[in-house]
């Protein structure tokens, strides 16, 4: 398992490949499920030109490790990689990567979904958006993750 907090832009595709090559044995895994969250340039009816991601150093990593541990108890997870951006983020930059390696697809889909949803509700990160209008606003809460309009 690896948990990384990144203050600079990261390439999720490259990170998946590097981690897979270093931490997993070829032939051991039959399924890889990855979720990548990318910053949009719109949110909640406004044009967004940037955001700042704050976190709680120490607690954020502790909660992410706990979440991945919970997934490992429920599904047959061989390994998992979680990377999350902090600091100043621009539209089109990756915010989060959750990648899960398993022998079979069901465990990979379910564990990845579980980690991502738990991260959304429990990992201490907070987004402050900078709008094109120059207004700033803290996001009040995460949504359920479906298009609603």
């Amino acid at each position: 398992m690896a948990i990384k907090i990144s203050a600079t832009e990261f390439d999720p595709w490259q990170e998946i490949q590097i981690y897979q090559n270093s931490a997993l044995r070829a032939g051991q895994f039959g399924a890889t499920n990855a979720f990548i969250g990318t910053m949009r340039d719109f949110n909640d009816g406004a044009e967004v030109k940037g955001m700042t991601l704050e976190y709680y150093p120490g607690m954020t990593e502790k909660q992410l490790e706990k979440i991945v541990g919970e997934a490992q108890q429920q599904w047959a997870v061989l390994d998992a990689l979680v990377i999350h951006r902090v600091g100043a983020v621009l539209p089109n930059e990756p915010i989060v990567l959750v990648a899960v390696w398993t022998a079979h697809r069901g465990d990979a889909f379910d564990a990845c979904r579980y980690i991502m949803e738990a991260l959304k509700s429990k990992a201490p990160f907070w987004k402050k958006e900078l709008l094109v209008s120059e207004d700033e606003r803290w996001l009040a809460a995460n949504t359920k993750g479906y298009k609603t309009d």
Partner: protein
Amino acid sequence: MIMSIKVRYFASLKESLGRSEEEQAFGQPLTVREVWQRANAGKPLPPHILAAVNMDYVDLDSTVQDNDEVAFFPPVTGG
């Protein structure tokens, strides 16, 4: 016995209070909610605020110990 507690605030709560952390000394065992009240002159805890002690989520009615780090913050919005 004097208990020394570190109190931390994050995100919009930190901005509205105008401070990020402080050391507080208390002469008796307190709940997390009482720590908030002592640190904020009796001001009610804003709705939806979450609390952690030593980087684990806790109920507001749980008790703090000497040298604990207590944190208050709004709902999380990462991912």
